[in-house]
């Protein structure tokens, strides 16, 4: 065949294909904490805006909106009160207290603190990384500058982007009748509050009830006519329809008599009594609403709402074998061997993803000129890096979990063998062949930059019913049938398996963010070159951190598996974590010089 003709314009020509006609199953992402409805609508777990009310230590703000009559100059971030003494962060001098806290206390004890002790004060600007954002819209009108205060919601959006552990300066001013700032600003310097400590505990400055104080209260029935379609728990919007008789369910989860039924998304809140009961879900709330229960009706009709298991409505106790059919293990030995392989694969993927992460340019490297040529580049890079790092970290968690699965299984049945930590990377990775997606090929492990092709290969690896997912579903199937192992083993396997869907979606999102730059590699990728393992002191230092992390994990897992000195095991875990933090710093510095750390070299020789 001859060379195909050259395309001249920018039209997208990829044929539309449905690569995986079967629906994607697994726990919906809406069940995860970070995608909780409460993050968008006040009313569920807590109102995240309440965290930012105390974003600056010692101060409490409120975010005021526009009155129905229009802006009256009171909108914005208003200081409710200053209470440095009531803030545990500032309350007492602690040994080793950071210098910025000492300085901030001095400011509260000095003229600034005295000034804001009385009168009405509003947040005027925030400043970080030499960038100052005003809480006012600036316009020129009839040759005079006009400062119009942003409404509270807009101020809150701006405050949300302030980063912790960096110097933060804020200014407060008072206001004239029309809302314009007057008088001298009071400037305070500190850092943004860290909302969660290392253990994940919310800062003790928040009083009980404070984070939920702006929410609807189910016990007072506030949600009766709630405009945000509140319900007191996360719930599915849509679910796959029920198979009428589970005995008729085919391997692909559809119904023998009505194949469309079980692959059809139905509105979970639909009125069951209508002839509409099984029609497809509507795409918008406006069109769906007439056919679904209003929030207040749920109290009366809750028994009708179906249980949803793995995305499908289910009204009977499901048989085992609910999962997609995969080749079962012949023996427990085969399962353990498979776990070992999976552990090596998790480590390999974690490092491949990490390398791809370092290959993305840091948002700090984006010049003003590039940002003006490519609006949104900084934000896209930040989001892409954050997502890819989260997947790499998740793979590291999986490495631990799969080891844990092994030691729990081997502890329960010592005849199967003795647990040895598996902390070496796989030499090869199985992935779908790009040309024939049904065919699996093995490729050698490799560290590559996050080009579109590489990201696409990550998508393929993590794809539901892809290689990785299939392996884990075998494991889940097998463990589900085995009563002799502790119940936690199955749960670990299920968690690893269901995370895969998130990885898949995250990589797809990254591809999407970066697609505008795909023909301009230099805009988003570093010209990273994998370094030789020896010769560069910094590279050697980075590899040493990997070795340290792995050795600490080995010690920790061995102790944990033997249920021995657990505090000592925790110390080893902490060592491993510190080593990875060091690795991050060194690798980022090297990546800034376009040098890639040859991670796998830490396991060679």
């Amino acid at each position, binding site marked *: *065949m*001859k*060379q*195909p*003709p*050259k*395309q*001249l*314009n*920018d*039209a*997208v*020509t990829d*044929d*539309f294909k449905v690569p995986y006609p079967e629906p994607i199953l697994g726990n919906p992402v809406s069940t995860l904490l970070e995608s909780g409805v409460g993050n968008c609508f006040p009313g569920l777990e807590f109102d995240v805006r309440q965290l930012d009310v105390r974003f600056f230590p010692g101060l409490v703000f409120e975010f005021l909106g*526009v009155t129905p009559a*229009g*802006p009256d100059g009171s*909108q914005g971030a208003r200081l409710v009160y200053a209470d440095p003494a009531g803030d545990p962060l500032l309350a007492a001098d602690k040994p080793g207290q950071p210098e910025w806290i000492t300085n901030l206390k001095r400011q509260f004890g000095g003229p600034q603190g005295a000034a804001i002790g009385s009168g009405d004060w509003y947040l005027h600007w925030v400043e970080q990384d030499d960038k100052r954002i005003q809480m006012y*819209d600036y*316009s020129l009108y009839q040759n005079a500058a006009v400062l*119009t*205060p*942003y*409404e509270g*919601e*807009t101020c809150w*959006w701006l405050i949300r982007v302030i980063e912790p552990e960096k110097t933060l300066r804020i200014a407060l001013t008072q206001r004239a009748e029309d809302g314009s700032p007057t008088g001298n600003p009071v400037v305070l310097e500190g850092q943004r509050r860290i909302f969660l400590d290392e253990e994940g505990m919310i800062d003790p400055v928040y009083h009980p009830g404070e984070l939920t104080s702006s929410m609807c209260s189910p016990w007072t029935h506030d949600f009766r006519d709630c405009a945000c379609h509140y319900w007191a728990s996360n719930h599915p919007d849509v679910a796959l329809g029920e198979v009428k008789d589970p005995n008729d369910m085919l391997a692909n989860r559809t119904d023998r008599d009505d194949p469309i039924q079980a692959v059809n998304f139905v509105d979970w809140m639909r009125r069951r009594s209508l002839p509409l009961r099984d029609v497809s879900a509507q*795409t*918008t709330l*406006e*069109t769906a609403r007439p056919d679904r229960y209003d929030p207040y009706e749920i109290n009366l009709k809750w028994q009708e709402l179906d249980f949803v298991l793995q995305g499908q409505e289910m009204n009977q106790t499901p048989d085992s074998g609910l999962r997609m059919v995969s080749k079962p293990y012949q023996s427990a030995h085969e399962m353990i061997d498979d776990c070992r392989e999976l552990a090596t694969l998790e480590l390999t993927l974690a490092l491949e993803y990490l390398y791809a992460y370092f290959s993305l340019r840091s948002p700090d490297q984006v010049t003003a000129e590039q940002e003006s040529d490519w609006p949104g580049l900084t934000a896209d890079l930040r989001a892409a890096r954050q997502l890819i790092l989260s997947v790499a970290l998740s793979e590291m968690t999986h490495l631990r979990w799969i080891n844990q699965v092994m030691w729990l299984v081997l502890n329960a049945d010592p005849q199967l063998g003795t647990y040895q930590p598996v902390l070496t990377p796989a030499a090869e990775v199985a992935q779908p062949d790009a040309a024939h997606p049904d065919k699996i090929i093995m490729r050698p492990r490799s560290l590559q930059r996050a080009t579109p092709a590489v990201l696409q290969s990550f998508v393929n690896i993590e794809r539901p019913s892809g290689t990785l997912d299939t392996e884990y579903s075998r494991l889940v199937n097998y463990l589900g049938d085995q009563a002799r192992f502790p119940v936690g083993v199955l749960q670990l396997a299920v968690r690893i398996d269901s995370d895969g869907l998130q990885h898949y979606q995250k990589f797809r999102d990254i591809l999407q963010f970066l697609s505008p730059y795909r023909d301009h590699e230099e805009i988003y990728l570093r010209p990273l070159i994998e370094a030789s393992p020896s010769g560069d002191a910094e590279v050697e230092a980075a590899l040493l951190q990997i070795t340290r992390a792995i050795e600490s994990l080995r010690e920790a897992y061995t102790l944990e598996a033997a249920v021995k000195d657990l505090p000592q095991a925790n110390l080893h875990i902490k060592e491993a974590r510190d080593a990875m933090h060091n690795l991050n710093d060194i690798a980022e510095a090297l990546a800034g010089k376009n040098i890639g750390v040859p991670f796998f070299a830490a396991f060679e020789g």
Partner: protein
Amino acid sequence: MNESMQSSGAAHVAGNLLLMAETAAIFNLQPEDADRLATAIEDNDTSTRAELERLGLSAPLMPPPPATELHPVRALALTVSQTCNLACGYCYASGGNFGGSDTRMTWDVARRAVDQLIADTTPGGAVKIAFMGGEPMVARPLIRQVVDYANQRGAVRAIRCGYSLTTNGTLITAQDAAFFAEHNFAATVSLDGGREVNDVMRPTRSGGGSFDRVAERLQALLARCDQIALSARVTVTPDNLNLPRVVNDIAALGFASVGVSPMITSPTGQGALKGRQFSQLLDAMRACGDEWMQHTLTGRSHPFANLATVLGELHRGKPRSHGCGAVRDYLAVDASGQYSACHRFVKDPLGNMGNLQQGIDHIARVDFLNARTVERQSPCTRCWARRLCGGGCHQEVLHAGRPACDFVRGWLDYGLRSYGQLQAAQPQWFDAHAA
């Protein structure tokens, strides 16, 4: 003209260029391949697909109509004045009042429309407000009030407001021009030709001509054209088909951009083009296009805007499901507070989209978009130009059908040939004009 209906709707060949109907992708072919493919397209779908396959290409089938996803309305036309000081026979608004009595929008209606527009927009976003009529300058104080208010409301939500105005130009003052400049208006002046032509088509209510008055009033706008995006728009009727002359006469007033648009339906039937007049229109537009191309290739500017627009659209290659953004991104509000599909649907029940009291009728929006999508238009599914044209103007199709499809295809065919010409001679033009 049934010929085009029998041939394949999968692709189209213009010169050496191939347009894929579904994806709007454009390919360069060898002359002999272009000839073979053109013959195959004349035959039928099967031969066309075989020929494409021989070239290593495949024409995707038309997918089922997509599910309509509604986004908040981003642009609003305010029919601030349902009256006009001119009396053009073909006016879509029947002399400005849409067949009713002369009315003007009240401040209360305008304010609530602006409130709803801004409240539905995410902080950091942008909205557009278009002042339409009738003749909007009849409602000068309201326009000023709306702009000040929208700026103020937008400012507290960090939303940028952009403004545009379509005017007959007869009432503009220097103060108006200064106001438009301060707020970076896009101003479109309706003119139909030089003095003789224009004054027949666009008389005042008392029967006099309007050209001299517009020419005089235009000076204020031209003086501020660094801050006002100024253009002229010609409505083409059987009376002004000599378009090269018309475009040049209007450009002589100082316009850098002159766009033409054929009259296909008017409330009175007066002025609408018919039958053979469409091929005269096509010839006239090609003549303007040729002039534009000669100028562009020799590094000079030319005011004819239609060809530049088509070339930009072809280059972007975004296949359409609808002819324009009406209903999807854009609605109009009239003096009584009714929302309609666009400014041409004011007081037309076919385009009713709710009202200010009850809010925008989103179900009507979805139904309208679903019904009007090009995948559901019966002659369109067989037409190679469907993804470029999007099925045409909703208002014209609903009231006059599609009398001008051969003209549209002819013009797009000419556009494709011009695209190939400009790509070969000056590919950098597209970097500057179609980014």
